[in-house]
């Protein structure tokens, strides 16, 4: 929080930006959490793992792991008021590499995430012209992406992806240059309501399609036996964990822009339940549409249910072609993907920009350009090519496990067991918040979270190590899978050895004042 006195002492450009209201923070945090995964991942995960019965592990995961880990991020970001590397550094010198690791993970995610948004932009237009004709699958990998038969890295560029991707990056840079309030908060306050309205219309329209009820029936019919399967519980915890975008710097960064006296847990509850609320909505909309798809194809819902890229770019185009007012469904669906993706991409980029700002002491504009231009170049060089789909697939699969999941496990163990900072963070949360986080919170973060994250991680490592992912060539996996994952960790550690300069935010009078004020409040 800036005050009249320290505002006069520091140059205006040197002050840390803050969200001008709690509402804007909540909106931006929801925008970040609600992403592609809510729309294309949750419905299938729920369907595959017990249908209606999945609600039980899902709610358990939300309450016992998702929300507690979200509050851990909030406490660190808000108490130590910094980007991930700076906040962890202030927590303890030895924790700084965790922050840089998270920054690098965000870089990898940003470069491929933007590509999917670019595809969705094109598909919004294709929905009007019905560009895929009768063969959505052949169109996607053939005419549109021109996917090469050989897996590897090539530089045969596909103009139909290059241009929309460039546009996505230009829009992102414009938003990020404008800063926390005029850029991030404003973009979220436009994109998120738009996303919600479009998506609600889409869901309502899907419910009126013939066969929609069969889709819902398939989605909600419980398979109680699934509850005895540990894999189903792991799926619930894994999904909640990825869905809330915890433990890779985003929520640490956003909460560092909050004013000192902010109800952290009260705001976080709204964010977490909004994210899940959107997922339930997506499950209803997606399965109503899949019910229609099965109805037209004369098969069962289980035959057509898919997730991810297959759902968005193959199943939905098929639905768009067959449904009454199909073009409208397409525009609403792909438009929703664009807006949900953009608000998440913004938050991912902010993790990197904030870190560079804190480390260099640069202003908003130079830091944004220094981050987003190289990121955009890497994205534009590697992905809008005939082999881009392979690089995207493998980067996504590996960074999720060896970046986000492994990073979260190490972070939780380090903070809870090595540095033993949870009691301090619990006190910080309770200083201003309406929902108190005491011993139960500490137990969930220190004991349950590492067990669950460890279990999921071990299973994933076994799966990835036992057979080549997707049958891709080993040298390709060695570079873009294992090599990339290892490099992130090594670079993260190395970056923590680069000294913080005199102009960096490590010695920031504004932070000293913030810390002193917090101490005074705690003593009261």
């Amino acid at each position: 929080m800036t005050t009249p006195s320290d505002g006069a002492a520091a140059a205006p450009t040197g002050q840390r930006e803050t969200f001008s209201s709690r509402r804007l923070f909540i909106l931006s945090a929801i925008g970040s959490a609600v992403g592609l995964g809510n729309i294309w991942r949750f419905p299938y995960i729920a369907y595959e793992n017990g249908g209606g019965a999945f609600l039980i592990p899902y709610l358990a995961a939300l309450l016992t792991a998702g929300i507690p880990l979200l509050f851990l991020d909030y406490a660190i970001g808000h108490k130590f008021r910094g980007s991930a590397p700076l906040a962890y550094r202030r927590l303890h010198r030895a924790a700084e590499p965790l922050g840089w690791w998270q920054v690098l993970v965000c870089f990898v995610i940003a470069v491929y995430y933007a590509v999917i948004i670019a595809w969705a932009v094109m598909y919004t237009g294709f929905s009007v012209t019905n560009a895929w004709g009768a063969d959505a699958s052949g169109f996607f990998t053939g005419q549109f992406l021109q996917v090469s038969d050989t897996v590897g890295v090539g530089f045969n560029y596909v103009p139909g992806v290059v241009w929309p991707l460039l546009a996505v990056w230009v829009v992102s840079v414009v938003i990020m240059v404008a800063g926390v309030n005029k850029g991030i908060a404003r973009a979220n306050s436009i994109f998120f309501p738009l996303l919600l309205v479009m998506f609600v219309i889409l869901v309502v329209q899907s419910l009126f399609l013939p066969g929609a009820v069969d889709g819902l029936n398939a989605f909600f019919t419980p398979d109680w036996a699934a509850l005895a399967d540990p894999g189903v519980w792991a799926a619930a915890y894994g999904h909640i964990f990825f869905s809330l975008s915890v433990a890779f710097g985003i929520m640490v960064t956003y909460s560092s822009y909050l004013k000192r006296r902010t109800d952290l847990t009260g705001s976080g509850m709204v964010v977490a339940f909004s994210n899940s609320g959107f997922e339930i909505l997506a499950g209803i909309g997606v399965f109503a549409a899949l019910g229609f798809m099965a109805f037209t194809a004369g098969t069962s819902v289980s035959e057509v249910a898919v997730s991810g890229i297959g759902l968005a770019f193959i199943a939905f185009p098929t639905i768009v072609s067959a449904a009454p007012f199909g073009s409208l469904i397409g525009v609403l669906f792909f438009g929703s993907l664009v807006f949900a993706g953009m608000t998440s991409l913004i938050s991912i980029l902010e993790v990197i920009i904030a870190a560079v700002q804190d480390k260099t002491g640069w202003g908003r504009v130079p830091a944004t350009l220094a981050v987003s231009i190289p990121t955009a170049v890497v994205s534009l060089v590697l992905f809008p090519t005939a082999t881009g789909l392979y690089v995207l697939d493998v980067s996504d699969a590996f960074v999720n496990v060896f970046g986000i999941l492994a990073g979260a496990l190490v972070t939780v163990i380090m903070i809870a067991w090595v540095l033993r900072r949870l009691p301090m963070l619990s006190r910080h949360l309770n200083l201003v918040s309406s929902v108190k986080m005491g011993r139960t919170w500490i137990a969930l973060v220190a004991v349950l979270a590492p067990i669950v994250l460890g279990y999921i991680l071990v299973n994933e490592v076994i799966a990835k190590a036992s057979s080549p992912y997707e049958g891709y060539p080993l040298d390709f996996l060695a570079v873009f899978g294992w090599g990339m994952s290892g490099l992130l960790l090594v670079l993260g550690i190395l970056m923590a050895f680069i000294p913080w300069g005199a102009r960096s935010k490590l010695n920031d009078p504004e932070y000293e004042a913030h810390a002193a004020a917090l101490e005074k409040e705690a003593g009261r």
Partner: protein
Amino acid sequence: MSGIAIALMIVAMLTVWGGLVLAILNLARHPEDEGHLPEEQAPEL
């Protein structure tokens, strides 16, 4: 839709959307105290 599927749909909506309503109500009961913040902070600096 089968009875059990309808029941679970309603339970899912009630718990998750109901949770959201409760979270919003809780937050509304604890408004931001922006107004007195600068006065409170100024003396100690």
